[in-house]
């Protein structure tokens, strides 16, 4: 099946989509969005500095039609979400987003109801578009670099005025082997300072639930959950997190969840391997103290 990946120049995201493309057979072509050196392993590689979806949709539609691509793959990301669905509509082709599993057919799996159910679909025609949920497929190690040809964009509908990266110190959430996440149960933004100290001692990253982000205690960029970051650490500390299904959907691939919550009925304990029913303000300092002692 003639396959096209559309993704920003990011080795981790490209590696995951490359793995997905193998289900469709042929070496995939790539439309690389943004500046930077594109890793190797692809067939034909097009590149544009443009990253704003609405400015890319029409040239992409033209490319797909002229080259006869059958499977078009995006990640479930800002760029994927900006382009995939209007592109599908423009081409009148099926789109299945948030893919978490693929089998021959192609048969794909995606979550429903905030991850409380999993649906299986068979795509009955080509071309089609899928968007792939982050951290659900192994990353292919892409070696070397690709030669690129420019993808021309005209008629800009959007203008990028500013882009500000939220500074998150340390290891990126998606790659961290230990994640320490705080929820509304922390009670204030101050609680996150304590979580940061714990995360640093464990060489991990700090996350937040939607509730904590809505309270303004943590930036949206560290939100873990269905519409935030999808993480897959070895250990996930959920501290003051109730465990709404939309949050749990972001930690499906966490190997071990530790729940720390004052409410023993909290839903997080249904996902946790280890649970501590106590005020986090007492538990987290104890963990910090023991970790410091062990490091001496």
């Amino acid at each position, binding site marked *: 099946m003639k396959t096209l990946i559309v993704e920003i120049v990011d080795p981790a995201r490209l590696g995951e989509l490359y793995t997905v493309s193998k289900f469709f057979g042929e070496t995939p072509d790539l439309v690389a969005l943004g500046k930077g050196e594109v890793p190797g392993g692809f067939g034909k590689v097009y590149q544009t500095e443009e990253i704003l*979806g609405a400015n890319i949709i029409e040239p992409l539609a033209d490319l797909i039609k002229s080259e006869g691509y059958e499977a078009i793959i995006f990640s479930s*990301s*800002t760029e994927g*979400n*900006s382009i995939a*669905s*209007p*592109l599908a*509509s423009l081409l009148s082709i099926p*789109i299945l*987003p*948030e893919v978490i599993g693929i089998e021959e057919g192609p*048969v794909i799996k995606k979550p*429903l*109801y*905030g*991850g*409380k*159910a*999993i*649906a*299986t*679909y*068979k795509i*009955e*025609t080509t071309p089609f578009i899928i968007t792939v949920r982050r951290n659900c497929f192994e990353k292919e190690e892409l070696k070397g670099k690709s030669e690129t040809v420019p993808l021309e964009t005209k008629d800009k*509908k*959007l*203008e*990028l*005025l500013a*882009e500000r*990266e939220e500074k998150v110190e340390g290891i990126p959430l998606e790659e961290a082997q230990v994640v320490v996440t705080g929820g509304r149960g922390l009670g204030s933004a101050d609680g996150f300072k304590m979580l940061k100290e714990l995360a640093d001692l464990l060489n991990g990253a700090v996350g937040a639930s939607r509730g904590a*982000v*809505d*309270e303004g205690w943590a930036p949206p*960029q560290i939100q873990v959950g269905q*519409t935030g970051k999808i993480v897959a650490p070895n250990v996930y500390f959920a501290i003051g997190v109730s465990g*709404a*299904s*939309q949050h749990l*959907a972001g930690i499906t691939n966490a190997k*071990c969840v*530790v729940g720390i919550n004052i409410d023993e009925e909290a*839903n997080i304990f*249904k*996902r*946790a*391997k*280890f*649970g*501590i*029913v*106590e005020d986090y303000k*007492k*538990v987290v300092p*104890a963990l910090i*103290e*023991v*970790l410091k002692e062990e490091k001496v």
Partner: protein
Amino acid sequence: MNIVVCAKVVPDYEVPASDFELVNGRAHERFTRVIGLYDENAIEVGVQLKEKHNGNLTIVSYGREDDIPVLRKAIAMGGDKMILVIGQSDDPYVIAENLKMAIEKVGDVDIVLAGRQSADMDRGVVPGILAAMLGYTFVPQVTKIESLNGEWKVTQVTEKGVREIKGKGKALFSITDDPSNVPRIPPVRRILAAKKMPVEKLEEVKPTSMAVEELSVEIPKMEIKCEFLPTEDLKETARMLLKKLKEERYL
């Protein structure tokens, strides 16, 4: 300024996984129906725009007639008018085509808003499909909108930070949560007035669905049993937890 917010009524998303139940691949009817998680953020953004620009805000929905009482919350929050297209398809093209029909009935709409994704099908594709059908510029994951003389500036949340994006003309923005768009609680007088507001009901159109067959919907098995650690001596609890995590090679 004419503003439309698309809102969907869904089974209560707060229902924990342990209580969740399916009938014929869809959530059991016994669950309370509510307006979608992000749709309420979209309504709040719509209300803020309306208040700032003295605009008109129409709530448009595709769904069941018996969901009208639930949708009235959107009116109480600040909607001026409501159109419901009656239908129950889950196909994103069918939903978008019906929303388009309702939006065109509103007239000359400047800005359409929708939640970034519904809380039942978890797709987030209807807003983009609808934008393309309407010929509107689409920007997803927006938290704030400033509009002036046909131009607009939006804040988009990305994986790494935020973008400020400028555009002009008719546009559809899908809205994500942010402290600035947490829905305000409507005053009682508006809740009461919303109950009397007439709702325009439309029959659905039935365009072709996309060529995808739903094979199954299942509840994933969760076979984790939580081991609760003793809490009499929390330093001892911490030591015990770290020891277990190391022994089982998680750390």
